[in-house]
């Protein structure tokens, strides 16, 4: 097992872990916006920057994003070196300028001593921090309905041609993963909307609750061996049915 030193504390790392995991294990808090346990690390927000060095590096250190740097044995990690702290502050200051009205960004900035941005606040405030989680989760489930468009300062998340995305299945994964909850959607018993697209819901044949969009059911039909009948009932009713079956079985066993 790899052993590392994080801000002076020895920590053991799981095989294949990235530094960020080890840092959190050590009880050190580090802000992150683009990291998510379910997704490949991406390294875009730059908040998780740390200094790493080794005894044999003679005091030389390099700055890396901890979400993507492997937790190698013998690494000495600092999350609080002056340049790391300063760079993190500049990044947060810039994010606050981009998202001046966003509570999460305001909180992160305040936690790092920034009440107001030193730069020009965005004349068109947005809540999107461009963490890319939404597009990556959509890629991850295999839909890729949305993407980042435009380079540089004009970058944004959008469906193709800014029109209702034909591929979107209305699963809401993007909206749910968004750290600032800035992807609007509506969902009700009959209808769901997201990205300007409207979806019809599938109702549970047991309880009648709308639990999934038709497009979702169609998308998963046959995938990974899922039969169409799987979507006849909602998760809750499935669980209930299972529990009943189980209690029947155990009751039978006890008899």
């Amino acid at each position, binding site marked *: 097992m790899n052993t590392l030193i994080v801000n002076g504390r020895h920590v053991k790392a799981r095989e294949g872990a990235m530094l960020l995991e080890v840092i959190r294990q050590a009880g050190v808090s580090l802000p992150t916006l683009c990291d998510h346990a379910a997704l490949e690390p991406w390294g*875009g927000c730059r908040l998780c920057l740390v200094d790493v060095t080794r005894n044999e590096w003679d005091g030389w250190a390099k700055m890396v994003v901890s979400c993507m740097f492997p937790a190698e044995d013998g690494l000495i990690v600092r999350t609080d070196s002056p340049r790391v702290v*300063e760079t993190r502050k500049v990044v947060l200051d810039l994010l606050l300028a981009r998202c001046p009205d966003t509570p999460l960004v305001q909180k992160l900035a305040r936690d790092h001593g920034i009440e107001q941005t030193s730069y020009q606040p965005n004349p068109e405030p947005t809540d999107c921090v461009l963490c890319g989680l939404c597009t990556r989760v959509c890629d991850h489930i295999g839909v890729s309905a949305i993407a980042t468009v435009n380079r540089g300062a004009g970058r944004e998340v959008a469906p193709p041609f800014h029109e209702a995305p034909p591929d979107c299945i209305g699963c809401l994964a993007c909206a749910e993963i968004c750290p600032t909850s800035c992807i609007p959607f509506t969902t009700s018993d009959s209808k769901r909307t997201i990205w300007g697209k409207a979806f019809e819901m599938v109702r549970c044949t047991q309880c009648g609750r709308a639990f999934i969009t038709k497009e979702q059911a169609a998308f998963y039909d046959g995938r990974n061996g899922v039969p169409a009948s799987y979507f006849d009932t909602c998760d809750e009713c499935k669980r209930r049915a299972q529990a009943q079956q189980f209690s029947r079985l155990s009751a039978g066993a006890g008899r």
Partner: protein
Amino acid sequence: MRIDSKAQFDSAVRNAKKAAAGRKLDILVCCGTGCLANGSAKVAEAFAKEVEARGLAASVGLFTKKTGCHGFCERGPLVVLKPSGVLYTKVKPEHVPEILDKTVAKGEIITKLLYKNPATKKPVEQYTEIPFYKNQTRVAMRNIGQVDPTDLEDSLAHGAYAGLARALFHKTPEEVIAEVEVSGLRGRGGAGFLTARKWRAARKASGERKFVLCNGDEGDPGAFKDRSIMEGDPHAVLEGLIIGAYAVGAHEGFIYVRDEYPLAVVHLALAMEQARQRGLLGKNILGTGFDFDVKISRGGGAFVCGESSALMRSIEGKTGEPRQKYTHATDRGLFECPTVLNNVETWADVGAVLEHGGPWFAAMGTEKSKGTKAFSLVGKVKNTGLIELPMGTTLRHIIYDIGGGILDDRPFKAVQTGGPSGGCLPESHLDSPVDYEKLTEAGSMMGSGGMIVMDDRTCMVDVARYFLSFLVEESCGKCTPCREGLKQLLVIYDGLVAGRGKPGDVERIERLAAGMQLGSLCELGKSAPNPVLSTLRYFREEYQAHIEQRACPAGICRDLTAYEIIPEDCNGCHACFRACPADAITGESKKVHTIHQGKCISCGACYTACPTDAIRFFPKVALAAAASGGQGGAS
């Protein structure tokens, strides 16, 4: 016919040379992109037609050929006569009969078509005597302008693939790498990484499938060295790639060509086809059993696509966006396989290194920067163009001897090297030798060899702003410091040039710059602050003038600058009146003229037009001061 052994290769070269020697007289018409834009295709056509009509091939052994870019595009279309070496500039189709009648038939020189040395005002006959050419040492560009890039035989006659033959017939892959190591060759595309070290790492990396890639993205605005090489001598690029593939054990390669370079694509594709037919590319190269083939990949068009990880993503068919990587491409690059990526010029150097040997290459240059380097010299110099020089040449030699000095003999102010994320060096650096280390120490970089010369009428704050405005569009926007940092830097600079600078701006700029250097994901964001930091380092007083006095010392920032006529110096020539686009100048012929401040848009056209230097500029704030009864320079 396929070449399948050393003996066959030698005889192919002998035949090609014999054929070339049969051409008693050669007329070389430059058909690089620059000259084509000036109409050289028509010139070449006119020559071909006349030569044919007059039966000159049979009677005097006269042939014509279309070559690649000489680098002297500004004077194009260029025509060189061989063997005499006479160079004609700005040639038009109507000059063709005259050239054949006089120069070819009688040996008479047509003076009006010669290049005139601006220093001596004398015409120069032979191109080898023109300072622009005379002072160059060409390695990567050795055959450009000499060979017909669409004719493999012509290239063979000029030594193409001699390096490849030496590598394949006489050296093991390790020995090839050792030769490149001795040459000291470093990457010509940016960071200047030792080429041999990269190759060795890829050779040692485990994996069956390996790649060699050629970076022909050339996204720097104004740069065109890689284009010239790919268009003008595609076989030099192929030869390098094949040698590199042999050295690292790769069997597949890609040439990533910027989408705006259609001629390069055509010439490369043709060269590949011809090389395959002769057994120089593809299966069982030169009968040695070594297989290697290459494909062309058309670039996505963005500057950032030239960055290593973005380029590989782009070839993989994904969005050309940089990826954070803590493994080297030589271990895991294209399709996660060991990959060597080198610049076009680097690859073009490789063949020469193998042909003439590492020590030959290492004998040129400085201690740590060996060989020669291509530069594109642009801006306020008399001779702009593409040049190749030994490393360690001084900036002064480049700007004054090759470039012919500053346009209109104005004072030199700065030279920007290294492309958009390079830096600006002041006069005090003119005598420093140009190599990787010196440029980096001075706060700039080699980059791909761009050089923009600036005269005294250049505002360094405005220059930094210009590069920021380029980079803010080219940042991919993936990471926060680069995307938001560039945006905010530009906000600050827009304020500075508009007279809204505030105390503390310089400190805010420096803090942002440091954050971007340390925090950005890729080299674009890390190096983007260079133009900012180098101008702050050498021209800090200009920033102070903008902020504290609301003044642009160079008189460039319009919002800060006003113009007026000095009555004693005005002879009433009316030139300024004609130049002014805003009708802000009045005055009768032969009488003193006046600029009306309310109408003047501070474009400076009158200042440039005035033959007697009777117009001066001064800080606009003085106008307001004068209007409110204070002291000021305004009339």
